[in-house]
Structures are given as C-alpha cells and as structure tokens.
C-alpha cells in the first residue's frame, strides 16, 4: 500500500497560534516532502526530509519548521501562524526516482 495520510484535514486557527500538521506513510520510505498550494497556483516546496533528523529547506521555508523523529511520520510546524499561511498543505513521500505520492491535503485557515 502506498498510502499517505494527513491530519487534520481541515483546521482553523487564529493569527499567532501554533499549528501542527501531521503526515504519515506506511512504507518507511526515506524521503518525504511538505508543499503548499494557493488558489490557481502550482505546488511550492516547503521542506524535504531525506531520513530521520535529516531535513532540508525547500523553496519557501520561512515561517515553517519540520520534525521527523520516525521514518513514518513527518510534521510541519508553524510557530505563531500568520494569515498569509492560509493555504492547502500537501505531504508527499518519494518512491524510487521522482515519483511522489501525495496525501489528501490539509486545508488551513489562519484568521
């Protein structure tokens, strides 16, 4: 099974609150990713994780941090969320070359 899960699916937070988005995969694949997608735009890469405690910034890491303590789980953390972080966040895992399998997304609204 190549399932990628994301929790929660929907989240509403107030500006300044902390946000934790969770991602899980069931194949212990090494590489995992966090993206965000805004209306009418393609996906933008926030962070890549190559393995436990081996993370690398993507194209838009500012305002985000990640945590990966187990291969199966990859968390995206927003410390003191901002309204411009309202977006849909997708987690993905890598497979072989550049085939990535995406989760269903988390729709985050920051008021």
């Amino acid at each position: 099974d190549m399932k990628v899960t994301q929790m929660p699916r929907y989240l509403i937070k107030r500006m300044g609150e902390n946000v934790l988005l969770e991602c899980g995969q069931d194949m212990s694949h090494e590489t995992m990713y966090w993206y965000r997608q805004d209306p009418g735009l393609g996906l933008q890469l926030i962070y890549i994780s190559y393995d436990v405690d081996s993370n690398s910034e993507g194209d838009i890491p500012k305002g985000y941090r990640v945590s990966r303590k187990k291969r199966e789980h990859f968390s995206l953390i927003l410390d003191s969320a901002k309204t411009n972080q309202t977006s849909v966040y997708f987690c993905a895992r890598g497979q072989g070359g550049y085939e990535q399998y995406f989760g269903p997304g988390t729709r985050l609204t920051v008021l």
Partner: protein
Amino acid sequence: LAKTTQPPSMEAYEGQEVNVSCSHTNIATSEYIYWYRQVPHQGPQFIIQGYKDYVVNEVASLFISADRKLSTLSLPWVSLRDAAVYYCIVTDRGYNQGKLIFGQGTKLSIKP
C-alpha cells in the same frame, strides 16, 4: 532545472483522445520528464515518466521528440474523471534529490 511551457487550458469531449504538449527547450542531458495530474481537492498523482522516445503505461502514453525539447502526454478515451490540471515537470534525478517544481499546468476540461 529546465523551464517548461504548457498550454494553460484545453477542452475535449468524452471518448476523445487528448494530447497535452509540453515544451522544454533547455532540457539537459541529465534531466527526465515527469507528468502529474491533480483533480480538485486532491493531491497530485503521478502519471508517467520518461527520458526519450516513447513510454506507455496503463494510464497514458508519453512521446518525447528526438531532440527532447517537446513531450506530449496522450490520454486515450478520456472520461469526466480525467478532468484535472496536468503538470509537466523536468528535473535532474540525481542532482536535485527529489525536488519537483510544479508550474501552473494545463487545465483539462471534459465535456459530456
């Protein structure tokens, strides 16, 4: 990473074959071509990948021109479920370590 150019939108009727083109005039010899699609309210889904010539799988086929500057994703017998945004991505497998850059893609609309 090579830049890609796709038509912003296309329309087709159910049952037609649809060809989505992608121009990547600056593609490097180390770069591969990937196609993904995304239906509303879901994450992108990998469709097919190739380096040269012709690749086919159970979902689609991919034709790559001899100079590799143009690729065409072919979807046979499209249905309403094929309505999605189709992304063409060109990337170097080794150097970029899994990094995909999604552009704006081609929005495919299907008419019944």
